[in-house]
């Protein structure tokens, strides 16, 4: 379920940006200063985002169902097995997030306190990404059937606002993806092995040659 997200998210982002291409309304900047236009031609053209609205919609609205089903399956699985306890941060863990982030950026020497299997920043971002998935899904439905699901549109502050939230979610997914990959690479081969197999060779027990789930 974790790995299924990789192709599903890539397909959703790719087809989503093909839809976005047809009306590129946003840029990142402050006041009159525009720092980054979503998206410049040097991104749109090599990635094939241009002039593919109909195909973008067809892929996006088909794979969206798989994305939703996978998300529901994942949520049901973590609830059923109690895995969510490892993921959802406590209030105390939330307070430790800034310190953990500073440490990972190399700005703070003191190592973060281990909250359990995942550290505070991990718990917060992994729970956050599930919530982001929920927001992307709900705002997606609001955009898909705005007349029938007008209550949902109102919750997102109107159709234009739902569009901006849905688009922002896609950018946050990309940022999460980048940080996630960087952190996995930094933490080494054993973490990657654990992501694939579901089993981890414990650091302090590696010498003793025993492994733990």
């Amino acid at each position, binding site marked *: 379920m974790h*790995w299924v997200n990789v*192709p599903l998210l890539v397909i959703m982002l790719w087809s989503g940006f093909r*839809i*976005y291409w*047809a*009306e590129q*309304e946003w840029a990142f900047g402050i006041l009159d200063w525009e720092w980054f236009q979503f998206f410049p031609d040097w991104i749109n053209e090599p990635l094939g985002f241009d002039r593919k*609205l*109909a*195909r973008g*919609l*067809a*892929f996006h*609205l*088909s794979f969206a*169902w798989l994305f939703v089903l996978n998300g529901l399956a994942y949520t049901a699985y973590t609830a059923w*097995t*109690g*895995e969510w*306890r*490892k993921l959802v941060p406590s209030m105390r863990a939330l307070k430790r997030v800034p310190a953990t982030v500073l440490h990972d950026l190399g700005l703070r020497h003191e190592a973060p306190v281990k909250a359990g299997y995942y550290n505070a920043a991990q718990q917060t971002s992994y729970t956050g990404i599930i919530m982001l998935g929920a927001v992307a899904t709900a705002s997606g439905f609001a955009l898909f*059937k*705005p*007349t*029938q699901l*007008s209550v949902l*549109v*109102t919750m997102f502050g109107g*159709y*234009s606002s739902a*569009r901006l939230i849905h688009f922002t979610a896609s950018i946050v997914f990309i940022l999460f993806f980048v940080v996630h990959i960087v952190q996995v690479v930094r933490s080494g081969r054993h973490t990657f*092995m654990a992501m*694939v*197999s*579901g*089993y981890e*060779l414990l650091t302090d027990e590696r010498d003793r*040659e*025993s*492994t*733990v*789930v």
Partner: protein
Amino acid sequence: MSEQQELTVEAYRRRSRRSFITGGVAALAGVAGWRSLQGADPDFRIPGPLRAVHEMNEAIWSTLMRDDHLATEYPISEASVLRVNGLHGIRDDIDLDTWEITVLGPDGEQLGTHALDDIKALPWHEMTIEHKCIEGWSQVTNWQGARFSDFFALYQDRLPDDITHVFLQTPDGEYYVSVDMATMQHPQTLLAYDNFGEAISDRNGAPVRLATPLKYGIKQIKRIGSIQFRRDQGADYWGERGYDWYAGL
């Protein structure tokens, strides 16, 4: 699962190997599936399976649709004249004095013709709704005209009971749409001839266009030349170019 379970390194290696192989096979299967989807026989310019999902979505949402559910209306102060986004089927000049709508039955038989005054004779309705374009923009705008359901009532007795779609075409035949009957019978589906108290501009579809918040703009045909009541789904300009035939909101 949250309890720790000790494994020997040998068992760990075996499990890891098995996971990598399973993952590799799944990845290959995914790639193969993706390639076969891309290579599937196209159904009007998109892979057939994706067209099937569009049709599945249509079945779901047309079943869920409540006929009495109205789209949100806005104060007219928030509205502006609709942006012109396409000129398919309305590039020629039009002579408003000789223009008329031809009405056809399911077998192509002509049932009647109407000048603008006939449409204006039907009860007047107004709506200020948010128009949505499939390209990703929206705009609150105003439409005034007759309900299509009132127009349909003029012909209902002369038509069979199994009419499911309405096919509308521009006078030059360049642009055409098919719309399901549930949408056409909805109180917010208008044969619009005015907006903001004035005649619709030529580029926005004079003398009469379709206006409904239940469909994207691609279905809201401008400058209607003919209307056919059908027993099946008819042709659709953008449907034939890869878009969803239903295009419902």
